[in-house]
Every structure is written in C-alpha cells, then in structure tokens.
C-alpha cells in the first residue's frame, strides 16, 4: 500500500492540503497546471485580502513558501494529470511531463474560473475600455493607483455592478458567488483610500456580506467611506455623447424610475464559474459534476469532502464558490480525511 498523497491544484485549497498531509509525515506530490503556485489570488494579482487585510502576495506567499520548502513535498508546476488508475491505497497517476506518480489518495483543489464578462455584452466590457472587472481593480489597487484605462485620468465617479456572471438564468448561472459582495465593498474602501475625491456607487440586488463580513466590510464601506448603495440591476452600459464618460442605464427599483447616470469607471464584480477544465477533470479523475458544473461531492456529514470516486477528495472552490478562509479549512480537512482513510486501510490490511 502507498501512503503518498497526490494533491492537484496549487491554490489556497491545494496548498493547505499539501501542508496538512506533510505535517503528519506523509509524502506529498503537488501538481499545478500554471507556472506558479498560489491559485487565483496570485495568478490574478489580488490586492489586500478579505478579511485579513493582508496583501495576497504576503499571505498566500507564506502558504507557498511553507509547501515549497517542505522536504516531504514534491511540486510539479506547468503540469497536469492525464490519467488516473487504481483505487484507494494504490492509485497510479500519469503526468503531462511523462512522469508516473504512485499515491494512496488524491486531493482535488482545482478551483474555479473567473466569469468572462464578454458573456454579458450589454454591460460594455470589451466594448469600452473604462469598463473593467474586479480583478483589474485589484491589480490597480496593488499598483497603488486607480485610473481609467482609456486616458489614465483619476475617476471622479465609479460604479461597481454586483452579480456579474452570478444569479443569472439568462446565462445559466444560478448560483451566488458568495465573496463578490464582500470583495466589492472592500474595493470601494480601497478606492476611497487611494483617491479620496472619488465617489463609489454599488449597484445591487442584495448585499450578501456573510457572517462577520457584514459590519467589517459592508457597514464600514457605507458608514466610514461613504460608499453609496443603489438598488438596481443595470440594463445597459453605453457611452455618453461626450465620448468620454459611460452611461449606466437601468431602473432604480426604490425610486421606481429609469436612471441614466454618468460614470468614469464601471467595474464588474465578476463571479466564480466552475473551473473551465471540469469536464476534462471529470473524465481524467473519474469524478462526477453537479448540475452547475462544479465537482460533485458525496455525503458530507460522515464522508466529508469525498468526491463520487472512493479515495478521491474534493474541496475549495472546485466544489462551489468559496472564500479563501473556507478553502484553507477544506484543504486541511481533506488532508485529515485522506490520511485517516489510509490509516484505516493499513489497519485492515494488517
């Protein structure tokens, strides 16, 4: 029997799982398709994370360093798993770099894909330069300056549109991406910190800053940083006659009237889609997908983080939209599951 743990995906989930398994003395092989570890927060250059307020490169950087420096962990970057044979205690994985990995359990932390705003053309992304996504604003905050991409001016007025690519039957996305309300209220704070004269408006259907993020982000953003909240789902973003500012059109449901408001910068709070690789992942690893296209999970109460294939565990944003803190817990929990199940197998064999 082999008790090496194969972890696929080097984001917060995979990094926590890899460290967890190594911390109890198991050998770990981490396979990451990108050329760097860290997952979305690193690959997309997030600025300060909620709720810690730490820069992503510092916080996630520590998680990466902890795994990369661990003698029990072998990391394969720019690599994928192309085939997986066997079962609990004796899996055999083929990697795209030609290597074979023998492992007792497999942990999938393959995460999500950012919603591509091109799929909502009426909101102007791809048509107007000054329509951007939350990831782009994260990068602006990281670089220390908020600017309109068209001409580099500091925006006087910014609109953040929530639920872009979430909660929308039109485009087959019937889920809430969970973190974008919190991320957006936090970005509004960061914009205000960098450019105190800029007014930020958030267009919402609901505000879902769950748990302790309610007062820490939503209330603070509104009460201390003057973020204004407008209850409207925007119909269309067009350009003003001056060819410069953008016009945000919709219905303000609270004044029951149409609105056409000029803005300098419009930000899409993009949602978390199922990883675009999921159909392939499902085939390679022999696991099921749930109806939205995320990886399916088994019974959770007594068989936590099991996928539909014994010995293969799944957690983090691969399961559903999740925040980093939750993903870290999923990673650790999966390490526990994998190590525990292998120990049970070993006892049975003895």
């Amino acid at each position, binding site marked *: 029997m082999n008790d090496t743990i194969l972890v696929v995906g080097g984001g917060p989930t995979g990094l926590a799982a890899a460290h967890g398994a190594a911390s109890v003395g198991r050998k770990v092989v981490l396979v990451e398709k990108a050329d760097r570890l860290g997952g979305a927060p690193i690959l997309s250059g997030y600025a300060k994370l909620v709720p810690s307020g730490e820069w992503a490169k510092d916080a996630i950087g520590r998680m990466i360093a902890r795994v990369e420096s661990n003698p029990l962990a072998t990391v394969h970057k720019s690599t994928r798993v192309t085939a997986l044979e066997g079962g609990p205690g004796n899996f055999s994985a083929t990697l795209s770099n030609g290597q074979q990995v023998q492992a007792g359990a497999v942990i999938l932390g393959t995460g999500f894909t950012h919603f591509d705003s091109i799929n909502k053309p009426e909101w102007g992304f791809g048509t107007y330069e000054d329509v951007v996504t939350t990831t782009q604003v994260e990068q602006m905050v990281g670089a220390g300056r908020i600017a309109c991409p068209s001409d580099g001016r500091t925006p006087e007025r910014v609109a953040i549109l929530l639920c872009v690519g979430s909660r929308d039957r039109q485009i087959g996305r019937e889920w809430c991406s969970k973190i974008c309300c919190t991320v957006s209220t936090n970005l509004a704070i960061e914009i205000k910190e960098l450019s105190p004269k800029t*007014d930020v*408006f958030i267009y919402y259907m609901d*505000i879902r800053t769950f748990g302790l993020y309610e007062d820490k982000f939503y*209330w603070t953003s*509104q*009460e201390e940083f*003057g973020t*204004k*909240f*407008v*209850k409207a789902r925007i119909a269309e973003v067009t350009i003003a006659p001056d060819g410069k500012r953008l016009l945000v059109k919709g219905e*303000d449901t*609270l*004044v029951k*009237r*149409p*609105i*056409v*408001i*000029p803005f300098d910068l419009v930000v899409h709070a993009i949602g978390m889609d199922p990883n675009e690789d999921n159909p392939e992942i499902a085939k390679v690893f022999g696991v099921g997908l749930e109806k939205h296209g995320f990886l399916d999970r088994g019974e959770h109460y007594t068989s936590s983080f099991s996928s539909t294939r014994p010995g293969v565990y799944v957690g983090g944003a691969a399961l559903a939209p999740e925040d980093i803190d939750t993903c870290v817990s999923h990673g650790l929990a999966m390490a526990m599951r994998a190590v525990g199940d292998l120990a049970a197998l070993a006892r049975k064999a003895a």
Partner: protein
Amino acid sequence: MPIHEKSLLDPNKVLTAEKLVIDGVDVSGHWNTMILPRTVADYDPDFQKTIRALPGGENVHRCWQCGSCTNSCTMYAINTDFNPRYWIYCTNLGLQSEIVKDKDIIWQCVSCNKCTNICPKDVRPEGVMKALAHWLEMEGHTPKSRSSMFDEEFTRQCIERGRIEDSEVMFKFFKASGEDVKALLTGGWLRVFIERMNNLPLLKAGRIGAFLARLPITGPLKMGWMMLFKPRTRSWARTGAVLAAYVEEQKRKAHAHG
C-alpha cells in the same frame, strides 16, 4: 390627445401646449401633449453632506433601506405618501427634486420617534425628518415654521444679553408669526392661561379680598420693567461676541458642506 392611465403619470411631467409648431409643422390640437421623461439623469453627491451637517441628519448615510421606519411610522399609517425611508434614500443619492416635491408633507412628522426606536442601523430617521424640514425652510421651499421663528428670537436675545426675557420672546414671536394677540386674549389659549393664573371663581363668588390676595402683581410688574430696560448678564458683551462669532462659523461650515 387623451392619455390613457393618466393616473400613472406625474402631473408636472405632462405638458399641454395651446399651439405647437415642430420643425415648421403646426401640430396644435392633435399632437399638443408631451410627456417629459421621468429618468433620473444624475446624482448630487453633496446633498447628503448638506443634510448630515444639519442637526438630526448626521446618520442619514447609514440607511440600508429596510423600510422599518416607514412601516412603523405614525404618519405613514394615515398617509402612505409620508415615507421617511424614501426621503432618506433620495437624500443619500442627492435626488433633491424628489424631496422638494414632497415639501408639503415632510414637515408633518410628529416626532413620535417610533422610527428611531426601530431602525436597525441607528439612522435616527426622526432627526432626518427634522433636518429635511429645516433644509426645505432654509432654501425657501417652505415658509418659516413657527418653531424657527421662536428659536430665532430666543437665540437673538441669548446672544445679545446672555439671558432671555420671557414676555419679550413671546411678544416678538407673536408679532413675527402674525398672531392676533387680541383674539388670543379674548378667546384663545392666552385667555385660558390668564384665567388659570388668577382664581376667577373667587371673583365670581364675590370674595374680592381673597381674589386680590392671589392676584399676581409683582411678577407682571417685573416683566414690564424688564421689557423696558432689557438688562444684560454682567460683562456679557465679550461672551456674546464670541458666541455670535461661533454661531456664524458653524453656519458657514454647514454651508461649505453643501
């Protein structure tokens, strides 16, 4: 041309022209009615600051539109046009015209504070109603309220003399508010007030001695004397000047916000 469902329209958005010529074509009669769009075309981000600078309006920006205030409101129960939640929203987005449109109802808030007691965000809507009524008055959208007239005279005396003279305050207040003092004395509350101060039943019963013994004499005399000589608190001049300067400064600040 007749408009169906006219009730859905804002009356001041419907324009009817007696004679109308568009691009040289006379369209009077048949096409003489225009409906202006109701679109909100901009926000005034400074309006919220103006209201926050007025007493009572400080927390208006906290509102998240749950509607608890309106739901609990004494006035809303009587008139569904009285909607504090809505005015708070318009304040936060700077939709001043919406506030002005309701100028004739906003002041009707009875300060019962049910809204303030129920509000989960501690917005203190009752205070916001006061601030809005105050703003409407300041901007001349509504006539000066009687309480403002009273406050003005009261404050003037405080600043000038460091004390107030009750009867002078009342006298000037009555004058400013155009109150008919004679009518008050003969049939209004002032008459009731005087009757209660003086024990009239004693007079009616013919017990003149007992009646006179209870007659307030020194008080009114002193009042008359004070009204003539307008005494000041000692060495008030400097304090008064400082106070006046402070009040001016606060006003300027509130204005700068707006």
